[in-house]
C-alpha cells in the first residue's frame, strides 16, 4: 500500500520536475476550457487598440515605420496582451495562498523552482491563448503575418518566455506586498512605463534619450522586437532577443522560488 521511501536519482528528479511543470500548465488550460468568458473579455482591449489606435495612426502617418503602421503595431499589441495576462498573475498566487492551495502544492514533492516554473508557464499558456486571439484579429484587419511553422513556433517560445518573466515578476511583488489590493495598484503602476517605454507603439529611435535608456533594459522591447522579426520578417537580433528573454525568465523563476516560502508563512 505505502509508497517506497527513497530519494530519487538526479535524472528521475529532473523528469519528475518537468512532469510537474506540465501538470500545472495543463490545469491552466483546463480552467480556460471551462470558462471562456475571461478569454473573450480580455480580447476586447487589444481589439480596441488595433482598431482605434492602430487605424487612426495608420491614417495620420504620424509614426514613421518601415512596414505599414498596423503591421508594426500588431506584434506590439500581442506582447501587450501577454503582458497584461502575466503582470497580474501574482493576484492569483495570493488568492491561492489565502485559500490554502499554495500550502497544499508546497507539501507535494515538487521543488519550489518547479512549482514557480509551473505557475510561470501556466501564465504563458494563458498568454498564448490570448495572443492567438490577437493574431486572428490582426489577420482579419489585413496584417500580413507569416505562415511559416518554424517562425510561428518561435513566436510561441518568445511569448512563453516573456510571460514567464512578467508573471514571476508579479509573483515576486506578491511575495513582497502580500496583498491583492496593493499588488493590483503596483501592477497598474508598472504596466504603464513597461508598455510606453518599449518599442510596442513606436520605434525606439523616436523616443527621448532617457526613455530610450529604459527601453533598452525593458524585456518587453526584446519581446516585441523578436515578435516583429518572426511575424513580419523585419530585421531582428533573434539570438539576443531570445537570450535576454530566457535569462530574464530564469532570473524571475529563481527569485520567485526564493520568495515562495514567505507567501506560506
Amino acid at each position, binding site marked *: 500500500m505505502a509508497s517506497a521511501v527513497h*530519494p530519487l536519482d538526479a535524472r528521475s528528479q529532473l523528469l519528475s520536475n518537468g512532469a510537474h511543470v506540465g501538470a500545472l500548465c495543463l490545469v491552466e488550460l483546463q480552467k480556460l476550457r471551462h470558462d471562456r468568458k475571461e478569454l473573450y473579455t480580455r480580447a476586447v482591449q487589444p481589439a480596441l487598440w488595433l482598431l482605434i489606435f492602430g487605424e487612426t495612426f495608420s491614417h495620420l502617418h504620424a509614426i514613421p515605420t518601415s512596414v505599414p503602421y498596423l503591421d508594426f503595431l500588431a506584434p506590439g499589441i500581442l506582447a501587450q496582451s501577454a503582458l497584461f495576462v502575466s503582470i497580474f498573475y501574482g493576484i492569483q498566487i495570493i488568492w491561492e495562498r489565502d*485559500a*490554502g492551495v499554495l500550502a497544499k502544492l508546497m507539501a507535494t514533492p515538487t521543488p519550489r523552482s518547479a512549482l514557480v516554473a509551473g505557475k510561470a508557464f501556466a501564465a504563458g499558456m494563458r498568454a498564448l491563448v490570448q495572443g492567438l486571439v490577437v493574431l486572428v484579429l490582426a489577420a482579419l484587419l489585413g496584417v500580413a503575418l507569416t505562415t511559416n511553422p518554424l517562425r510561428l513556433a518561435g513566436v510561441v517560445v518568445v511569448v512563453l518566455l516573456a510571460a514567464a518573466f512578467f508573471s514571476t515578476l508579479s509573483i515576486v511583488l506578491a511575495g513582497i506586498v502580500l496583498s491583492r489590493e496593493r499588488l493590483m495598484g503596483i501592477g497598474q503602476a508598472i504596466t504603464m512605463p513597461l508598455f510606453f517605454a518599449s518599442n510596442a507603439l513606436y520605434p525606439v529611435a523616436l523616443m527621448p534619450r532617457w526613455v530610450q535608456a529604459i527601453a533598452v533594459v525593458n524585456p518587453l522591447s526584446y519581446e516585441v522586437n523578436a515578435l516583429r522579426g518572426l511575424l513580419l520578417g523585419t530585421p531582428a537580433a533573434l539570438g539576443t532577443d531570445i537570450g535576454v528573454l530566457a535569462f530574464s525568465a530564469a532570473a524571475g523563476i529563481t527569485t520567485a522560488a526564493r520568495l515562495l516560502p514567505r507567501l506560506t508563512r
Partner: protein
Amino acid sequence: MSALPDPSAEPAVGLRDLTVRFGETTAVEGVTLKVAAGEMFGLLGPNGAGKTTTLRVLTTLLPAGSGTATVFGIAVGAQPMEVRRVIGFVPQQLSADAALTGRENVSLFARLYDVPRRQRSQRVSDVLEVMGLADAAERLVATYSGGMIRRLELAQALVNRPRLLILDEPTIGLDPIARQGVWDRIDDLRDETGMTVLLTTHYMDEADALCDRVALMHRARIRAVGTPEQLRRELGPEATLEDVFRHHTGDQLEAGGDMRNLRQTRRTASRLG
C-alpha cells in the same frame, strides 16, 4: 544521497523539543511527541494554541526553529522531499480549485505525487469512488457543497497513498451530517489501510470518539497526552474531555474563532460563491 531509516521501525511522527518562534511570539515551545505508525492521533486545543504551526513544520512548510521533527524517521528539515513523498495533507481552508472539475483536481495531485501514468486514471477514479464523489467527478467544484469539497480534498491527499495523513481541522465549518460523512470516510480508510492519521481539532466530542490518543495543546505547549479514556479517568467517572482540558489549562476550549479565522472562513465562502 543518504540512506533513509527503515520506516517500519520508526514512529510515524517524532517531535523532540520542537520550538518555533515568529519574532517576539513563541508559537510552539518545547513540544515532544511521538505518534506510532497506524495511530489516529488528535492534537487538541483552541485557536492559536500552536497546532497548525506544528503541522506546518511536519508538512515541510515551515522550518523548525530548534529541536527535531521526523516523519517515519526522516528528518523534516534535512530531507523535505522524502517527507513530502510519504504524507498527504489537507489544510484548514477549503482548498480545492473551484474552476476545475473534481477529477481534474485529483488528477493534478496524482501528477504532482508522481503516480505512474499507467495507474493514474484508475487511482484517481478509485479515490473519487471511495470518497463518494464518483457521480460528481465531472462537475465543476464550484457546484460542490462544503462536505463534498472536504471529501474531494481527502481524495487529493489520498491519491498519493500516504503513510501519514495530516488533517488540519478537517471538519471545521461543516454541518453535522457532512461532518459525520467525512469522519466515516476517514475511519473506513484507516481500517482498510492501516494508515497513520494526525489531525487537529477543537471539537472535543469528535476527538473523544475517534482518536486512539490525543495531546492537549495550549499556549504553545503540550499539557497532557494519552488516550481520551485515560485522561478522563484521571479526573473522575463523569469527566468529559472538555473538563480534562479545563483542568490542565485552566481555560475554556471553545472560545470562538479569532479575527483571522473569521476572515479565512469568509474568504472561503466568497471564493466558493
